[in-house]
């Protein structure tokens, strides 16, 4: 079911909000003991809210114009600050923190009628690509419980995949929405930096953090962005550019659209099966009227190095506030990955090293940005694999941070450039989802959705549901 179907059903009285929400919790209770997608459930409040909305619908069928997400069960990554609902960032340092305020995006979702089902598991503080860096139980991939769901928004990805909720929010600093979307057969958006407010989202790397979400279909994804996007007076980095009606252009032809294939992304290290899946998808897009040409992003090789200097620098700063004075846990409780990034970042920012590391990396960032700008002079969008490999096994990369970092090699450059990237399903290989990333210029979300929608309608991978292998 999609948001559109639910709206119809609620209007017609096929089922009530309460029934929908109860169904959501019963699905979660059925699967989550094994999947570990949720850290906190908001059952009592959610049912109360559902009851309230049922009354509203009875009174006024047009309420959906005001509240476009009325009754929709949503799960929030635990970096999203929620008033009076425990918010842990996946870390035990703030394991008992009940915020006194809602993040702007949370407020917008609630105002639009969404029902907060619970808070989802993640790599602590957003540090990771697999979900294994959580201080709680590791989230498992519903397609194969021995494999990772992708991180860091691991719980949101798994929860949407197994049908616990329709929408799972995430933050994407380097990969954290698109990778779990790719590993869990979902549509996952990393919006343009500044398109969605960061206010109330626990910061990982402030100049990278993009606030996105995962859904099963493109329509649903576009519908949620219509709610979350927009300028926020509480976030100076949001941009006062008009928010498009993203759902309105879905279905329009992409005839004549130019798709670029960055040659630097189709190299050694990329799994042949993944590569073939993407090539096959490109044929489908050509059939839909697009033309494909090779382009170059010449500074790609330096992207990961720049990313792993700039991000830890900001991380080391942003984690300073957890000093053990006002939140329960002391700094020794930081996990290995957080400690690694605090040390790296403290080093690259220290006097005498700043110019050689931070400043140099900032210059590389500008070059990466320019690479994309130049590419978009030739083509409308770029298409690259989301991950170089299929979803990997739990434990496979935990002892090798560098290998783990390389899971994001096709995703991080997009965050360096601040542009949007959308994961859609390219296909299935050996029973595992393979993700494909559509990248566009700044504020081109509408265009990305247009391409993704036609492709999705043609392929309909979203109809494939997880089989809980090894469950």
């Amino acid at each position, binding site marked *: 079911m999609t948001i559109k179907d639910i709206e119809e059903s609620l209007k017609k009285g096929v089922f009530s909000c309460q029934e929908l929400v109860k169904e959501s919790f019963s699905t979660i209770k059925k699967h989550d003991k094994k999947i570990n997608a949720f850290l906190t459930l908001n059952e009592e409040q959610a049912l109360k809210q559902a009851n309230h909305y049922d009354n509203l619908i009875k009174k006024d069928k047009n309420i959906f114009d005001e509240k476009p997400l009325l009754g929709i069960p949503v799960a929030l990554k635990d970096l999203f600050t929620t008033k009076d609902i425990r918010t842990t960032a996946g870390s035990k340092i703030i394991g008992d923190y009940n915020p006194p305020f809602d993040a702007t995006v949370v407020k917008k979702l609630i105002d639009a009628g969404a029902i907060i089902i619970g808070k989802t598991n993640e790599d602590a503080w957003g540090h990771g690509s697999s979900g294994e860096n959580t201080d709680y139980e590791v989230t498992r991939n519903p397609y194969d419980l021995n494999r990772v769901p992708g991180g860091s928004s691991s719980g949101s990805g798994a929860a949407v995949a197994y049908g616990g909720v329709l929408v799972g929010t995430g933050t994407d600093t380097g990969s954290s929405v698109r990778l779990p979307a790719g590993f869990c057969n979902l549509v996952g958006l990393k919006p343009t930096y500044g398109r969605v407010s960061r206010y109330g989202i626990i910061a990982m790397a402030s100049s990278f953090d993009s606030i996105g979400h995962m859904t099963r279909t493109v329509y649903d994804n576009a519908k949620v962005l219509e709610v979350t996007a927009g300028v926020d007076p509480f976030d*100076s980095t949001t941009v006062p550019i008009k928010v498009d009606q993203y759902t309105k252009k879905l279905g329009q032809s992409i005839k004549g659209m130019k798709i670029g294939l960055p040659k630097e992304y189709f190299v050694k290290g990329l799994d042949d099966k993944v590569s073939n899946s993407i090539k096959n998808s490109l044929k489908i897009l050509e059939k839909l009227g697009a033309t494909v040409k090779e382009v170059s992003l010449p500074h790609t090789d330096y992207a990961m190095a720049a990313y792993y200097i700039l991000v830890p620098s900001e991380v080391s700063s942003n984690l300073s506030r957890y000093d053990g004075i006002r939140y329960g846990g002391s700094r020794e409780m930081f996990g290995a990955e957080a400690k690694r990034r605090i040390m790296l970042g403290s080093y690259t920012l220290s006097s005498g090293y700043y110019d050689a590391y931070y400043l140099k990396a900032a210059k590389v960032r500008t070059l990466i940005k320019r690479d994309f700008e130049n590419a978009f002079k030739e083509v409308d969008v770029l298409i690259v694999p989301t991950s170089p490999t299929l979803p990997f096994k739990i434990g496979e990369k935990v002892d090798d941070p560098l290998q783990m970092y390389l899971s994001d090699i096709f995703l991080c450059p997009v965050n360096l450039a601040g542009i949007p990237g959308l994961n859609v399903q390219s296909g299935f290989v050996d029973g595992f989802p393979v993700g494909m990333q559509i990248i566009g210029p700044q504020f081109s979300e509408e265009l990305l959705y247009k391409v993704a929608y036609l492709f999705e309608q043609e392929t309909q991978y979203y109809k494939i549901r997880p089989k809980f292998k090894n469950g």
Partner: protein
Amino acid sequence: MDKKYQPIIGMETHVELKTKSGMFCGCKNDPDAKKPNIHTCPVCLGLPGALPVANKKAIEWTIKLGLALGCKINKLSKFDRKHYFYPDLPKGYQISQYDMPFCYQGKVETSFGPVRITRVHLEEDTGKLIHQNINGHNVSLIDFNRSGVPLVEVVTEPDIFSSVQAKEYAKKLRQIIRYLDISDCDMEKGGMRLEANISLLNVKSQMTNNKSNSKFKLPNYKVELKNINSFRFLERGIEYEIERQREILESGKTPIQETRGYNAEKNITFTQRTKEEAADYRYFPDPDLPPINISEKWLNEIKSTLPEPFDGLFKRWQEKYNLKPELVELLFETAEESKKLEELFKKCIKEKLSVEKFVNAMVHKKIKTIEEFKKMTNIDEVSDDDLKVIIEKILKVNPKAVADYKAGKINTINFLVGMVMREAKKKIEFQRLQDLIKSFL
């Protein structure tokens, strides 16, 4: 002190701006509120996920101060994060400005010579720690009312050469800030905080090493004197420090580079932090706050709110009204008040009253209005024409006095003045009456 050593002093002054709201949040700017932690929000408490939004007014006031100090204004400026751990700093970093302050290269004139201003930048204040004994336990409490209050820092070049000059500079700076009406500069409450960097230059060795160059080489150490909350303590602290450093230098050693505090009760300075413990603040641009473009248009808008320059005002008043700066400066603080004062001066002129005397009376007799001034000097309204009639009459009935005056007994004029006043039944300005009578004699 002998002339072997020349004190070299630079100053850093922190001033809390009195904007309505905080530097990066909407909280009321009231750092001294009676109840602790009442003016707080997720932003100034540094709660996870909260983001700063810069206060435009505070930026404008900082630029205004820079302009009043003759500074250049950076067209592109930014905020940076300065990292250190301290319980009153909730984010683990202070939002400040590192290499692109709003204002740079200004000047403050003192009677000993100009003091160059290196920079004027804007940052946020921290919370306040209160150490108390509660139920027999020594505890430290944190009050975040002050957290996030806009704080301006004014840094000078090492252009100050004595404790007296340091005091004059600091007083002048406070005067200028109050004149702009952007801060109360209440030293006791921490609204203005002084720091002096002090070292002694060995004049003789400099002379032999550096003959041709009039510029001196700075000493190879400096001592930072912190937490000074009065001008008197500034003067005394510097004097103590000069003496202390001189003794060390005389013994052939170099004072260690350190931060020292001033103990007013004992009138001594004491070690707070030595260089070895000095922090690396790991400055970097705050990614939550986009760089700030100060456009020509915006700068002109700020310029248009600037009052007449402080020094210029005194010069003009001296020329126009014959007013001594050291006297008239006691009568106003803000530019608004100076305007009201000048309105009174103009009224004085209109009523043929002496502005100089009026100002004197305001300072010494605490009068506030022209009416009070008139009453005090007992002057009634009476026209020259009316007086002339009375004078003619008095001169007629007192021929002896007139004759005595003309014969050289000048003092008899006082008698005549008294007679005129009695006849007129009015209090008239003595000098005026004397001049009038003289014109008849």
